[in-house]
């Protein structure tokens, strides 16, 4: 594995987090390419091979609908996130397809300033390397805890 791949992935991951944390959610689906699979699950479910997710999307349209729902339909307490992303571990690299595992911590900040550790976990990502960029095709978000406080509105 080359340093270049590592940098490409780190760059993609940083841009992804900035998009959500800056409340540019409309751009979030654009971070997904190809198969566009996004799933949030828990460590216990992931370990036991149980497939259902807290969120599951397998198309760009489903990702767009997540954002539309948050903007126009769902009611939830106004909040923002701060992603702190650890170093990606490259699990495999094969003919332009890269699998990685990256730890994350997401803080949730509510209107009154209350700041909580909302979630920690790992991103299991599949990237395809194209034109000097790592394009995210699939992301499985594995939360360490099986408990979510109140609701999960913004994507992780």
């Amino acid at each position: 594995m080359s340093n270049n791949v590592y940098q490409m992935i780190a760059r993609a991951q940083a841009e992804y987090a900035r998009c959500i944390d800056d409340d540019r959610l409309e751009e979030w689906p654009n971070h997904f390419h190809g198969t566009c699979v996004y799933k949030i699950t828990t460590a216990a479910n992931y370990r036991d091979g149980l497939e259902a997710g807290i969120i599951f999307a397998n198309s760009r349209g489903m990702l767009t609908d997540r954002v539309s729902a948050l903007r126009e339909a769902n009611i939830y307490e106004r909040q923002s996130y701060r992603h702190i992303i650890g170093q990606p571990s490259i699990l495999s690299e094969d003919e332009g397809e890269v699998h990685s595992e990256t730890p994350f911590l997401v803080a949730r900040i509510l209107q009154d300033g209350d700041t909580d550790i909302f979630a920690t976990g790992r991103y299991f990502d599949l990237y395809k390397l194209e034109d000097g960029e790592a394009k995210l095709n699939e992301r499985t978000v594995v939360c360490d805890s099986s408990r979510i406080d109140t609701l999960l509105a913004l994507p992780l």
Partner: protein
Amino acid sequence: MENVKDSYHASILHLFFTTFELNKLSQTGAIIVDESGGHHVSYSVIDREAQKDLEYAKQQIRSESEYQLADPSLLQGFDEYHDGVTLQILSVFPTFVLQQIQNAIAVRQIVPRAIDKTDVNWTYIGFTDDTPEKRLTRIKQGNLVGPAGYISMEDGCVGGFVQLGIAGASGQEAVLEMGGSQAQSSESRVTEASVRGFWKAYRSNMGL
């Protein structure tokens, strides 16, 4: 707990339901409450032939909107039980819930942790003889429920909002009798019968 027993809030609080005609108070359905009041079934049946209810639309209750999904395939389902029921919530006193929302079948356990804290455990169910297509259908419909649920998200926070709202009014009380004062079965889901039923069973069990 009251949120689960409440058979009429879904189509008002949850925009997703009624926009896509999964659940409207003007649909056929009913609520069945047992004698003790502690158990209930609330269900609705889709009636695609029924005329659009103009009276309902005129009320401008939150549920009517022009909101469109970019990928509506998540709402496609298959006819599993051949009874026309699109939605059913079944509760058993005190804390068990079985839901069917189209093909998303799940068990919920309500676990009180403190006077101001409750856990809800969600277990989504599939069957060993599900085809891969049915499995995927259930997994996609799972987006409707759970802590990130298109439908359930509001259920997660509304209890907290109410508690915040009444925090300054602990010396006061208000009584609304929706659907009467009994805990009885009804052909309309516009009732709090099963909520009253829960508290009737609670008082009975607690000797109050």
